[in-house]
């Protein structure tokens, strides 16, 4: 917004007023109240703590957490420890700042306070529940990396000899694969899935990557290995079709399409695969 208004003349700038919230509503609010579910160390009891940070327009949750970090005092004025959370890119492409904001899983960098206050006041922040909680809002999501290893979510390229450029893909395939390539391993789909739990179900994240790699002409060469990665006890059959994954995915990945395409692949592989041996 700023670069645009800076370059325009003062008369034209008035036309851009719609970019900022109405001035009278800004002046009403001085503070934003935030309730945070905290944990001091792994295994310790969780507790709620209330904070109040100075309001300014267009705040996001990360900037509120930074304010708390600068001045770690609860709403009642008691001194406390700074809240721990993870962050990196601040533009919703790395996925690491994912947490439960107002009861729904999403990235805290793109969670805007002005919108959140319309949902709930005070705003609540909780760590994701499907991953081991390290401290406060930080979770250990290495489980998702294990999923990727389980399904061999990579493409074998040149070994001792050059495999060449590989066959061409159609535009449709390229477009579908591009959608799957956007996965940032944030864990929203697993958090919202009523079937996902440790070792119980591998979840949509890895299944979408199976689809992604198996659509690739070179990836197809090891297709069966990936299928077998999602055909175990924790595999694709545990999907309960609640379809929350596709609703909460911040990158709009067609996760359910991936699951159903792989349902067909695994069914055919399971029914007829053994007849080939």
């Amino acid at each position, binding site marked *: 917004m700023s670069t645009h208004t800076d370059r325009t003349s003062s008369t034209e700038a008035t036309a851009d007023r719609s970019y900022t919230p109405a001035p009278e509503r800004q002046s009403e609010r001085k503070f934003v109240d935030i309730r945070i579910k905290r944990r001091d160390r792994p295994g310790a009891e969780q507790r709620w703590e209330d904070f109040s940070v100075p309001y300014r327009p267009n705040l996001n949750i990360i900037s509120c957490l930074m304010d708390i970090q600068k001045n770690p005092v609860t709403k009642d004025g008691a001194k406390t420890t700074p809240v721990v959370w993870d962050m990196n890119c601040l533009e919703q492409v790395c996925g690491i700042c994912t947490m439960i904001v107002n009861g729904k899983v999403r990235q805290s960098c793109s969670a805007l306070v002005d919108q959140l206050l319309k949902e709930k006041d005070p705003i609540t922040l909780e760590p994701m529940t499907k991953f081991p909680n390290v401290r406060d809002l930080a979770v250990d999501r290495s489980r998702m990396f294990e999923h990727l290893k389980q399904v061999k979510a990579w493409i074998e390229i040149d070994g001792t000899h050059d495999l060449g450029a590989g066959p061409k893909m159609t535009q449709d395939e390229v477009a579908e694969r591009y959608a799957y390539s956007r996965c940032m391993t944030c864990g929203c789909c697993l958090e*919202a899935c009523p*079937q996902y739990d440790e070792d119980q179900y591998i979840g949509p994240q890895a299944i979408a990557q199976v689809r992604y790699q198996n659509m690739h002409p070179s990836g197809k060469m090891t297709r069966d290995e990936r299928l077998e990665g999602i055909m175990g006890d924790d595999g694709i059959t545990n999907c309960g079709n609640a*379809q*929350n994954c596709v609703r909460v995915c911040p990158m709009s990945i067609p996760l359910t399409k991936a699951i159903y395409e792989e*349902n*067909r692949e695994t069914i055919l592989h*399971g029914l007829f695969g053994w007849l080939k041996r």
Partner: protein
Amino acid sequence: MLRKLHQLSGIVPLGAFLLEHLYTNSKAAHPERGVADFNQAVADLQAIPYVLFIEITFIFIPLLYHAVYGLFITWETRPNNLSYPYPRNWFYTIQRITGIILFFFILFHLLNFRFGLIPGLNERAVAHYPNEAYEIVSREFQMLPILIIYIIGIASTVWHFANGIWLFLVDWGIVIGERAQRVTGYACIGFGVLLYVLWINVTFAFLRPGGLLGGLLY
């Protein structure tokens, strides 16, 4: 594998048997010949060669498997409908709730009518007394609590079956795309509504000739 068999067993043989069950019951819906036709239908079923073997293989074993494994699946669930109140998420949870209702409803239904093992209520198995079949069922349905149990039980059955068809279609990779799933979903809802109307009609055929519709279609 076990899960896929669970899904399959819900359609074949259990779903197929459910439709056969509706067909047989619907014999009672004829405004004049209802009683005789229904009793004859029960007698005909009992005349199937190797009836006990067929009943055990195609009904009791799949039913037991579907019920017990279904409870196991339900045990694993971590519902979150209040945080994520999307329609499909509700369908997911209701499928499990109706499953639990059905476990007890079908247990009661079998003990009461198939085996006649509930002392003080009914001790005559419908299957073994074809001549009294209509009368036994009618006597039960005249008790309001029993009738209510059946109206709820049938609603759960129809929901579980109609949604189950949809689940089978998507789980077996037959219906994949978003639009295709939406269209199939509406088709399943329509099928479920039709089944429920037919089944409630025939339930009331045991209370008055012709059922709720009063033999309108005859």
